């Protein structure tokens, strides 16, 4: 599978993905028609508040959703092959091998009863034809690579003997142990304290070039994506609101939600007396969502049409798209467009 790949085909292509959870209260439409691509060597940041569908998208790609979650529609093409059609057995060969994942909470993501070394070794043995000794050697190298001090000794330690940051390093080592093509990191730094966060990010950055893997970085922290991503996807209510390069999103955002997000982040050069502006309201209820734009009830620029139907994407330029009625060619020139979407930013 690793060999047949045209230079121009994207590494991962997600098309019309729809994922729902069937709960007591009804169908929760967690992901509603999402499509995006990740190219080889690219670092894509997926940003949004909790409940926006970021993690569910990631779990859908690896088909790790558990009952009552289910992929309703869409296809996920990885290196030209549709993952949605793959059997569980075929998926096993992909997970941890072709595509690997780092989870949010390193404190609970490692098995407490198995030594750290063994948890790396078992992954290597599962996917590679190495003997136990070679696998151990490789695991040790990986631990050194993720900069765990005294790696040789730490191999036989249990996860509870590690700090949060160290555990996340172990998780990274596990994720990288089979040279994956794509690494999905689901809020890898959220559960860590600030200094550890930056260390982990730095580590991921350096490993990225070393392993030449594409990364899908899920986070709610815009600061994190600005640092290492080449492309940013902004999600809200299970849909992609805006997609673009770091420059597009940070300086030429064409979506009220993205702008709201940006305004709620403190900046170094900010006026001392200026207040941060939170986005009013709370994330949408995804059981029986409205026909209109999910953000409309919280949007300062909302128009009548916003509650009636969902806008289509407007392509501002190559690689930069935004889903908002304000950008519609028939839309009246609003406050939003007149300031070029960069009001107060």
């Amino acid at each position, binding site marked *: 599978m690793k060999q047949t790949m045209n230079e121009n085909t994207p590494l991962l292509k997600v098309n019309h993905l729809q994922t729902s959870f069937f*709960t007591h209260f009804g169908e929760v439409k967690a992901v509603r028609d999402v499509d995006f*691509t990740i190219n080889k060597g690219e670092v894509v940041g997926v940003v949004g508040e909790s409940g926006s569908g970021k993690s569910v998208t990631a779990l859908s790609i690896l088909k790790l959703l558990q009952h009552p979650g289910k992929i309703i529609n869409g296809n996920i093409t990885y290196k030209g092959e549709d993952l949605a059609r793959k059997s569980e057995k075929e998926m096993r060969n992909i997970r941890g091998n072709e595509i690997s994942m780092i989870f949010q909470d390193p404190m609970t993501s490692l098995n407490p009863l198995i030594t750290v070394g063994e948890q790396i070794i078992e992954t290597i043995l599962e996917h590679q034809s190495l003997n136990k000794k070679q696998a151990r050697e490789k695991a040790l190298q990986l631990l050194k690579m993720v900069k765990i001090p005294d790696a040789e000794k730490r191999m036989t330690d249990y996860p509870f003997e590690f700090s949060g940051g160290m555990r996340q390093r172990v998780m990274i080592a596990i994720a990288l142990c089979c040279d994956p093509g794509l690494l999905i990191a689901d809020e890898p730094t959220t559960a860590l304290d600030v200094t550890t966060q930056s260390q982990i990010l730095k580590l991921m950055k350096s490993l990225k070039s070393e392993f030449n893997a594409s990364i899908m970085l899920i986070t709610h922290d815009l600061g994190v994506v600005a640092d290492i991503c080449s492309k940013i996807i902004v999600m809200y209510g299970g849909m992609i609101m805006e997609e673009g390069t770091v420059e597009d999103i940070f300086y030429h955002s064409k979506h009220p939600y993205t702008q709201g997000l940006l305004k709620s982040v403190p900046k170094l050069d900010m006026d001392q007396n200026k207040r941060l502006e939170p986005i009013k309201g*709370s994330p949408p*209820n995804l059981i029986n969502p*409205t026909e209109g734009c999910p953000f409309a009830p919280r949007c300062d620029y909302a*128009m*009548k049409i*916003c*509650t009636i139907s969902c806008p289509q994407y407007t*392509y501002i330029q190559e690689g930069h798209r935004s889903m908002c009625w304000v950008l519609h060619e028939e839309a009246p020139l609003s406050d939003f467009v007149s300031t070029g979407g960069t009001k107060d930013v």
Partner: protein
Amino acid sequence: MAKDSIENAMSQKRPVIDPSLWNQLLEIEKDEKSLSHISLTYSQDVWRRLRSNKGALFGLIIIIALILFALIGPLLTNHSYDDGTLTLSNIPPRYEIYKVNNEYFYLHKNLKLYLTEEDGSIIKMLEKDSEDLFKKQLIYAVGNGNLIIDYSTKNILTLIDENGTTFESYKNVANKTNLLGTDHLGRDLLTRIMYGARVSLLVAVVAALVNFVIGMMYGGIAGYFGGKVDNIMMRIVDIISIIPLTLYVILIMVVLNSGLLSIIIALGSVYWVDMARVVRGQMLSLKEEEFVYAAKTIGTKPLKIITTHLLPNAMGAIIVTLTMLIPSAIFTEAFMSFIGLGVTAPMASWGTLCNEALESIRSFSYQLFFPSIAICITMIAFNLMGDGLRDALDPKLRK
């Protein structure tokens, strides 16, 4: 892909949109409802989950029925639990009757002949007039003839007339006099089971109350004060709980002699340890909460903090433990009575009923089944109720 889309979008003539739709959406028009998540208060949530749990509802209904059965049942029967007619001993709930000259007879396994009504109520036991020991026959003078019970064949009783013709059984009827039959002393089984239910429920209530008070105070004090006090108090609980509580109850019963009061004392004196543990655990976590610090800051006394702040918040766990302890207490009483340490004769408990019936299990198995079924149903009802409550009160299971 991206390029294609752009071109498509350009070339396609978009539908004309009604200009009025471009008006600004006013604050009040915004659909706030789409933002609100379904949220229920804790008690609403508990009730919703309890109600949707069929097992718990079933348990609740059975428990209510059981309470009615124990309280009202004895008022409706004209039998007493401690006084039986020996001539009416060991009569099953259903039997075959024979029809002879428009009179109905029931032939009992123990070589007894009863005169009955057609509907199955017993009129009286007939006295035999003579016995032919050689032919192994009992002779009864009935009306103008004789009825003979022939017991010459082993394990088979036949009713014959003077000419030796065997009567065929007329029909199988339900015992109208004693609905569930009688025991070996002729006491009405249904009445005894009703009184047994009283014993079980009394034990349950008293054990639960004692538990509640001692367990809660003990656990509350240990948990609230913590440190050395807690350490010593909990070591005592540890030591007590290494040995099965049943064994303590047995020892205490041996010392106190059998009886209902003894069993309640015995249960009450050790059965609080589980509750103490649970309450202590709750105390330890709750006492670190802000509202407790707040109460301390304004100088509230420890006892008041325990009773007004800590215990009410630990109530969920306490109720769950209680519902688990009640069937356990009922079981222990039945167990004690079964091994001969329970309530004393002529009082009836389900355990003693089972124990008495065990001796005649071959011939009169019904005497064992009815009290057994009573115990089983009660235990199942309390357990289902307890399981349901536990699930409903567990905040972890909230969805």
